[in-house]
């Protein structure tokens, strides 16, 4: 009984190690294919469309509502201290440092990451990847790398769109609806938000998240058990692992960048 239990722990540990190793080798293979993908931009553009452009709508809507809610709640708190002129600082700093990168990455993993996993997983289940190998086409370079690259490019772009739209939505609510002075909203924001410190670090965060989320998504799809149940499990795993990785990495990155 006890021995069985230890066996389980051992097997579990080896599973984790094997998975880590497989994911790293997979990442290396994907990265080695980047050069060839750049010579065939048509593939990359098609993936940028399905990964980036199609995620645009949900990003725009979420950004507007997040910015509006931040502004509304920030106003309610700040007005008690007569500090509502700092509303712009509150909205912009929280969007640029935390909410922009994190929320965009979470939405992206739900919208695009899950689609990537399901697509690649189904290709594997219907043996499209195997038939490509039969035709001497490397499925990693033909299928995975363009998708990986598209994810890495799309997420930072989506993040800056999220940030600036959120700030404008916050401005609309704060200044036009709640009556915060427009001049102090923008000037306080401009004096407190530092480009080299806040904006660049937020952007670096989004690059890291894009890399991690897309890596998890394509790996889960490529590694899926080729059954319908396996694909569904891989899709779930892709979203869950992405969310956990993004939130944990965000803590580490914030601790390194902003403390």
């Amino acid at each position, binding site marked *: 009984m006890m021995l069985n239990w230890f066996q389980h722990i051992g097997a579990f540990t080896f599973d984790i190690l094997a998975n880590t190793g497989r994911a790293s080798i997979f990442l290396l293979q994907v990265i080695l294919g980047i050069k060839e993908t750049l010579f065939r931009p*048509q593939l990359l553009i*098609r993936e*940028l*469309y399905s990964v980036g452009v199609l995620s645009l709508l949900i990003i725009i809507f979420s950004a507007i509502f997040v910015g509006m809610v931040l502004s509304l709640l920030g106003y309610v708190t700040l007005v008690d201290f007569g500090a509502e002129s700092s509303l712009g600082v509150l909205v912009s700093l929280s969007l640029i440092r935390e909410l922009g990168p994190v929320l965009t990455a979470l939405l992206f993993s739900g919208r695009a990451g899950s689609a990537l996993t399901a697509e690649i997983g189904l290709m594997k289940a219907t043996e499209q990847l195997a038939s490509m190998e039969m035709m001497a086409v490397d499925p990693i370079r033909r299928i995975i790398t363009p998708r990986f690259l598209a994810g890495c490019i799309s997420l930072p772009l989506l993040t800056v769109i999220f940030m*600036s739209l959120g700030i404008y939505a916050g401005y609309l609510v704060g200044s036009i609806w709640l009556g915060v002075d427009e001049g102090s909203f923008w000037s306080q924001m401009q*004096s407190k938000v530092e*480009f080299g410190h806040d904006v660049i670090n937020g952007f670096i965060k989004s690059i890291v998240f894009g890399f991690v989320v897309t890596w998890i998504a394509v790996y889960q799809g490529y590694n899926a058990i080729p059954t319908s149940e396996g694909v569904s499990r891989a899709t779930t795993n892709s979203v869950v692992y992405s969310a956990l990785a993004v939130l944990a990495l965000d803590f580490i990155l914030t601790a390194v960048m902003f403390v």
Partner: protein
Amino acid sequence: MVSSRKIEILVGIFVVLGLTAFIIMALNISNLSSLSSAKGYNVTAHFENIGGLRPRAKVTLSGVVVGRVTKISYDKESFRAIITMTLNSDIDYLPEDTQASIYTSGLLGEQYISLEPGAEDEVLKNGSSITLTQSAVVLEEVIGKLMVSFTTKD
């Protein structure tokens, strides 16, 4: 299936949107535009106590921001804090006996350095040091002094 020309156009719109957002962040939301005169010269000042002064705090002249605090360190010879600040290069007319004081903006706001020009003919240059300084007011010290003066009365 969307035609590949349409895809190209949509991807182009997406990339342009992203770049526009980035430029907005740079110019409209952050202080990149006001940092255009990043070139400047460094001046040091010794303080007894800097309170809660932080790097990147502003340096003002009659309330106008003319520079930033770049480095805060401790001098083990004079047992005082050394503040290095970068002043904009167009502010090249400050007399050598300019006084630097640490003030607090508002009652509980952040601390900043305020410069008051003196009367000498020599001006501050890169590497020169401000000798007339006034430390930050630490609230506990003030309260402590008040307590002492209240108790000695009776």
